[in-house]
């Protein structure tokens, strides 16, 4: 667009509500409720890791933080040797 709005930018809770909804709905409309690929991704990660290490079924923990232009996916894998390895992708 061009020019600028004469309405002052609202820093109130209604503005926060709108922004939260926009981010959430953008993700939901795109991919259904929760991203369908996540269970598959989890399974595949486990398969790959298991070629090298013995890990339990629930050793993979996927955390997601949806943002407006960037989402972050954090994958934690508990390995039995005592130390945990972490891989973070953006």
């Amino acid at each position: 667009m061009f020019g600028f709005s004469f309405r002052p930018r609202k820093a109130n809770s209604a503005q926060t509500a709108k922004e939260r909804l926009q981010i959430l709905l953008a993700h939901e409309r795109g991919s259904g409720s929760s991203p369908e690929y996540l269970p598959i991704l989890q399974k595949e990660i486990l398969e790959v890791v298991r070629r090298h290490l013995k890990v339990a079924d629930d050793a993979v923990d996927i955390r997601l933080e949806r943002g407006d232009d960037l989402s972050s996916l954090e994958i934690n894998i508990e390995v039995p040797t005592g130390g945990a390895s972490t891989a973070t992708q953006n």
Partner: protein
Amino acid sequence: MSKVIVVTSGKGGVGKTTSAAAVSAGLAMRGHKTCVIDFDVGLRNLDMIMGCERRVVFDFINVIQGDAKLKQALIKDKRIDTLSVLPTSQTRDKDALTKEGVKQVLDELREEFDYIVCDSPAGIERGAHLAMYFADEAIVVTNPEVSSVRDSDRVLGLLNSKTHIAERGDGSAIRAHLLLTRFDNRRSASGEMMSVEDVLDILAIPLLGIIPESQTVLKASNVGMPVVMDDKSAAGKAYTEAVGRLLGEQIEIRMDVGERRGLWQRLMGRTA
């Protein structure tokens, strides 16, 4: 020992989700390990009220169907470290919720949490039935209004017959508490709305608290913060006290719970 508490009502829009969020956050703020579960399959909303909607990966249904482990689906609150949320699924398949599945999840949660708060959907169908089925206690959320009171009475009947505890048939019953919400002192005093006594006379269960109709509730939902965390607001205070009573504390119930109105509002607001 852990306790499963269902927040239920029959009628929609009376304040169940608001109350489930507030009560669970209130219990967690008191140091109790608490988990709140959204049973409203298909209409996920608790995550928004709790402010964790951007972090949902797996949900209650994924866990029931074996696609995720419980600990992978639980979302830890960032503000209160004793609080976790188990979001529901957006699926339209209402049969996704099974009695065995719900039991398994609750049993596993009981091992880790002191309180498990179940946010029931409206109605008396499958979701509402399963939300109450395994409960030890119930918070019946009611507005001082005829259809809400009638539906609450119906729900009380179900709590006393169609639940795990009731079906044991040994005379034991779910402990049910009445939570009167969206209460407007002025309209009640003027006879426009039923009074607290009126509702108590009809439903005849102990009163857990009176939550005033309050602007703060909308603001809290806008920003995804359970209203109980706003300890300056009338609604936040009322929820804090209700949580105290739930924990067995003797806290007097105040009737003057309406939002305080300024002189200007009182002069101008007769019609508002």
